[in-house]
């Protein structure tokens, strides 16, 4: 589904990603982890073509991502950013409706089909009752669900999320990640998300892409990847792994 070959990226002279190669299979629910500043967000933006990547480094569906038009790529990849500006007060409904833009021409208004899709996506994320409320008046969890609904309305096979769990309390973190896992299981979407909570990721995600020092140091099954040794090596924290209620848990020393 996603194929990255020898991807490097630098902001000016500062090298962020150094010669990365990996592939993500269709339907994978993959956590991108790593210490702050290791290039997680940059990697996500490179895959989404939001940063100018070189040709023949990122392949979506076997096709070079730079050969897609912006609109065609928006039908393949939905991106949920970490921060959404709210200087102007669009309602939740208007926000989700924007997800239909890749399927419309400039002057075209929403068709009945678009309205049905928007309604369905909002119901799926439990935000339909909030449809008239402006985004700026919502709690962090509600806002994240609305943005998720917008990404769903794009009807893309791939979803990329930049720290969807940050700034949420523990119950909302569970709510969002369960929702994402259900989407990945039921609709066979390929989902990549940046997470910081090791236990949360280990419990719900399938695979792990561990970044350290501009490189990928581990890619594979998440349970095998999050070993005390790796945590010590790449995060600098001493931890042990215990089975509690048949669920592996990381406990920090």
């Amino acid at each position, binding site marked *: 589904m996603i194929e990255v070959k020898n991807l490097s990226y630098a902001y000016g002279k500062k090298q962020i990603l150094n010669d990365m190669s990996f592939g993500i299979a269709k339907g994978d629910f993959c956590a991108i982890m790593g210490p702050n500043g290791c290039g997680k967000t940059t990697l996500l*933006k490179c895959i*989404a*073509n*939001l940063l100018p990547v070189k040709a023949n480094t990122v392949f979506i569906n076997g096709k070079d991502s730079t050969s897609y038009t*912006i*609109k065609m*790529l*928006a*039908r393949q*990849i*939905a*991106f949920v*950013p970490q921060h*959404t*500006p709210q*200087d*102007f*007060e*669009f*309602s939740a409904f*208007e*926000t989700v409706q*924007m*997800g239909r*833009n*890749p399927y*419309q021409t*400039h*002057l075209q*208004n*929403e068709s*009945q089909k678009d*309205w049905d899709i928007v309604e369905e996506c909002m119901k799926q994320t439990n935000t339909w009752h909030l449809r008239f409320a402006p985004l700026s008046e919502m709690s962090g969890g509600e806002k994240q669900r609305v943005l998720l609904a917008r990404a769903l309305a*794009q009807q893309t096979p791939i979803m990329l999320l930049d720290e969807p769990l940050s700034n949420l309390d523990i119950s909302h973190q569970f709510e969002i990640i369960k929702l994402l896992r259900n989407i990945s299981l039921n609709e066979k979407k390929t989902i990549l998300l940046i997470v910081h909570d090791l236990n949360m990721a280990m419990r719900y995600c399938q695979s792990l892409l561990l970044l350290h020092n501009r490189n990928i140091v581990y890619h594979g099954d998440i349970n095998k990847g999050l070993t005390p040794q790796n945590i010590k090596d790449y995060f600098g924290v001493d931890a042990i792994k215990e089975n509690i209620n048949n669920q592996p848990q990381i406990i920090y020393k």
Partner: protein
Amino acid sequence: MKANRLQSKRIGLAILTLLMLVAVLLSLMVGVSHFTIGEIFSIIGQCFSAEGETSVADTVFWNLRMPRVVLCLLVGAALSVCGASYQSIFRNPLTDPYILGISSGASLGAAISILMGWESTLVGIGATALATALLTVLLIYKIASIGNRMHTSTLLLTGVCFTFLITAVISFLMVLNQDKMERIIFWTMGSFATASWSDVVAVAPCVVVGICVAIYYSKDLNLLLVGSETAKSLGVDVEKIKKHLLFFTTLMVAFAVSSCGVIGFVGLIVPHCIRLVVGPDNRLVIPYSIFVGGTFLLVCDTLARTVLQPAELPVGSITALAGAPMFIYLLYKSKKQL
């Protein structure tokens, strides 16, 4: 919901058109020489019957008042649509062509063209004004987009600095060429007193094309409001659209300024008031801005020429009386974000 919105858009546009026509009629009536409604219709009727000699009243009506009203509508619509577009492009409710210094940039071009003797046609002035206004936009855009997010304070300060700089250059030019001072002052104050049909003919095509471009991209402008990266991930060709819009809006500003000088705050108040009523959707804000902006500037200009009759106030002072308090209010409201 869908049918509802389309219907309310039609009703809204109908009401605004009606209001505009009432304002046009009132504005045609009042002034140094008064016309009654009956007289207006008989003058317009005469025009079609093409008989009878032209009286002084006819000349006043056709050559002074009518072009002035039409030019007010065009400039008001242009400045409001530009304001709405700039606010979306810079993602900041506090911007308009005046505050960003783009109007001043255009007035510098107009001043230069007078000094060089290119003022024989409005197109000559307009082209020079367009060049300097585009340069101003480009510099402001580059400076304000340093770093990730465009900060309100950076943007406003850049605009203020450019206005100061350009005012200084214009003063300098005026002192060097005292014989042409009066004509240059005209561009820094803003007035419709010299409006003529040739102004209308030069301004109208630019305004019509500019407004069409803004309407064409109005949905994309909505997406720009939620951030450039998000817009791109939703299928908007951000760089291309920003370039097109900045060019055509600046074209409108340059020709508006060439015809009537610098008029502030229209582009700030009009889109803001519309947003208070219909929300931030540019597919409504931009079409409504055309009518509300035209009507607003026409009312301001009518006040400017009737309040202290026969003396005339600069129309910019009337728009500033309404706009400056509004700007302060907006600044107060958004001070948390500064």
